[in-house]
């Protein structure tokens, strides 16, 4: 049963299995284990990022192509829900309508970009997506009538998942409100989406993607049209990212350029995939959890270090909590050098690929 659910892709390492179980249990009971607004926000963000990062891993880890426009699809999903909910009557219909529009737009955009740039070389895709992604981000802040510009959009979500909706007395000190329902909605969606992605990468289709990643010419020679498969991978990844964006908008009841479209998020996603382990959906999950928790709690630690080093101003500037990306970047470069298979690959003992 479990084997079937995981599409026969078992963790393959005892430590990894323990980590995954801890992750699932922690997220499932998170709101009760660590009560508080910050904890539930962090947990929800972990869930959303798991989907976003895993979808990026479909491209980077499984197909071997780098996209820098992945947050564009994340943003399209978030804006889809946000715009539909603020223009139409707030409710499930508008959420669904917005999501459907966003999915359609993502599908078309990913298809066009993929078909256009994957034809030549995979490297083109990286460069063109970087250009398209940044152009889209500034377009979104310019079309302020539709997107709210830099300020973004604040909107109302369906009543059942809004914080004002209380359905029972507080249990174990946790308010039984719409927020909690929203959290578990996202939890359920994440679980389904991650399992779906596991299914995709372990299907014959996923095997072809990995064959293309490992040897493009050989895959073409066996008779798989590389461009078609790569474009399909790009479209599928875009759709999952779009869904993740929709979940983000539902959770925050707000969307703006900085929350879903910015280059910073793209960089975060890239770092998470590589540190977690490319080419494993589990790596995305573990990486996202570690990263988001570190982002929210490790910065406090850096602040401590900053205070401790305040007698040496130059050193203190390096330890400022705002500069945590510096340390993460170093970790990223080191892990590309020394642990190219990431946390999960190292735990599984996957040998490094030759190229």
């Amino acid at each position, binding site marked *: 049963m479990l084997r079937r659910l995981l599409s026969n892709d078992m963790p393959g390492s005892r430590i990894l299995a323990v980590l995954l179980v801890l992750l699932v249990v922690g997220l499932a009971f998170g709101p009760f284990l660590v009560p508080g607004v910050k904890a539930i926000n962090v947990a929800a963000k972990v869930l959303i990022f798991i989907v976003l990062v895993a979808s990026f891993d479909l491209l*980077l880890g499984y197909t*071997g192509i*780098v996209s820098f426009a992945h947050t564009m699809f994340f943003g399209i999903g978030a804006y889809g829900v946000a715009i539909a909910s603020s223009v139409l009557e707030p409710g499930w219909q508008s959420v669904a309508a917005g999501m459907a529009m966003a999915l359609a737009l993502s599908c078309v955009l990913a298809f066009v970009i993929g078909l*256009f740039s994957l*034809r*030549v070389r*995979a*490297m*083109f895709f*990286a*460069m*063109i997506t*970087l*250009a*398209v992604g*940044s*152009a*889209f981000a*500034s*377009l979104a802040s*310019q*079309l302020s009538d539709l997107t709210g510009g830099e300020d973004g959009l604040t909107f109302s979500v369906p009543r059942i998942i809004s914080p004002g909706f209380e359905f029972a007395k507080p249990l174990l000190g946790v308010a039984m409100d719409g927020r909690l329902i929203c959290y578990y909605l996202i939890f359920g969606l994440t679980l389904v989406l991650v399992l779906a992605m596991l299914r995709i990468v372990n299907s014959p289709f996923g095997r072809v993607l990995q064959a293309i990643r490992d040897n493009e010419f050989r895959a073409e020679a066996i008779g798989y049209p590389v461009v078609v498969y790569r474009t399909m991978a790009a479209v599928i990844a875009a759709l999952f990212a779009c869904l993740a964006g929709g979940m983000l908008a539902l959770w925050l009841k707000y969307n703006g350029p900085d929350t879903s479209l910015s*280059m910073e998020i793209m*960089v975060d996603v*890239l770092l998470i995939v*590589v540190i977690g382990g490319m080419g494993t959906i589990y790596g995305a999950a573990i990486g996202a959890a570690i990263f988001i928790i570190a982002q929210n709690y490790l910065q406090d630690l850096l602040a401590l270090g900053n205070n401790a080093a305040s007698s040496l101003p130059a050193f203190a*500037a*390096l330890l*400022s909590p*705002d*500069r945590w*990306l*510096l340390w993460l*970047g*170093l970790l*990223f*470069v080191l892990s*590309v*050098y020394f642990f*190219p298979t990431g946390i999960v690959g190292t735990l599984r003992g996957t040998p490094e690929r030759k*190229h």
Partner: protein
Amino acid sequence: MTETEIQSPMPARKVTPIWSIEFDLRPILLLPAIALVALPLVGTPSTWLTLTVAGLAMGMIIFITASGLTLVFGLMDVLNFGHGLFIAFGAYVAVATLGPLVNWTGSPELWRNLVALGCAMLAAMIAAAALGAAFERIIVRPVYGKHLKQILITMGGGIIGEELIKVIWGPSQIPLPLPEALRGAVSLGDASLSRYRILAVVIGLVVFAVLAWTLNRTKLGLLVRAGVQDREMVEALGYRIGRLFVGVFVTGSALAGLGGVMWGLFQQNLVPQMGVQVNVLIFIVIIIGGLGSTTGALIGALLVGLVVNYVGFVFPVLTQFASIGLLIAVLLWRPQGLYPVVNR
């Protein structure tokens, strides 16, 4: 012996210099064509002239930053996603240099301004070259021939560099004012041409002339061009292409530093993210030009500069997509770029 000619099975491919008749002129003709098409759209000739000079200036600045990147790619098949770092670093070094020279930049005499600016540019180029040498050694060298890792690790290097710039100069925007005598505009009929933009065009032309001369008229340039065409052959002839590559990388970084100063003066303020922002334009330019081609990079940069300025005036909302639209149009016409480099 009879007069039998030994015919090689394939005619040797001729490298056509830019001044020969066989040189493909159509991409160059694209420039005046676009400028002419834009004239009725813009309306008044004076505005059109202002926009054209602005576009050419912007194009020249982009070309200066892009030339190194495209050569590095052509020569060694290395695509540096951290190239923007050199641009930003150069610009920040220029700010640091111009700070103490405030008496010279504030002076109304043009020559004092130019000397101060020259110092800043020199400092920026030296600093960017040093950074480039370190970057090549630490970041790029271990990942030769591994494309995926290259993209990842140069991106990582770029992120670290951007954060270090934030540590040194702070995360917020800092101004980079133009020297006194370069502010304002020269009027030519009804059109007003910003002085700095004219200077930028001149500097760009000088850089292009020096580059073209080096590439076409010196032994070093011959080796670089040969390396772009066929790296292994150059190695087989006994030249150490690795050293050549380091040289090109460092030169490219220095040019990026120069371009960064010019870009900073063009925008008149600096943000640590400027490297990534310019990098986007550079990528578009070198894809348009044909990866590895210097002439292509120049034409591509000028095209992008012109189109962005015209579109920015006629349809301001579409500015961000102007360069991408141009890219798509060019690739539909020539999928390998304007001047494809043969063996890629």
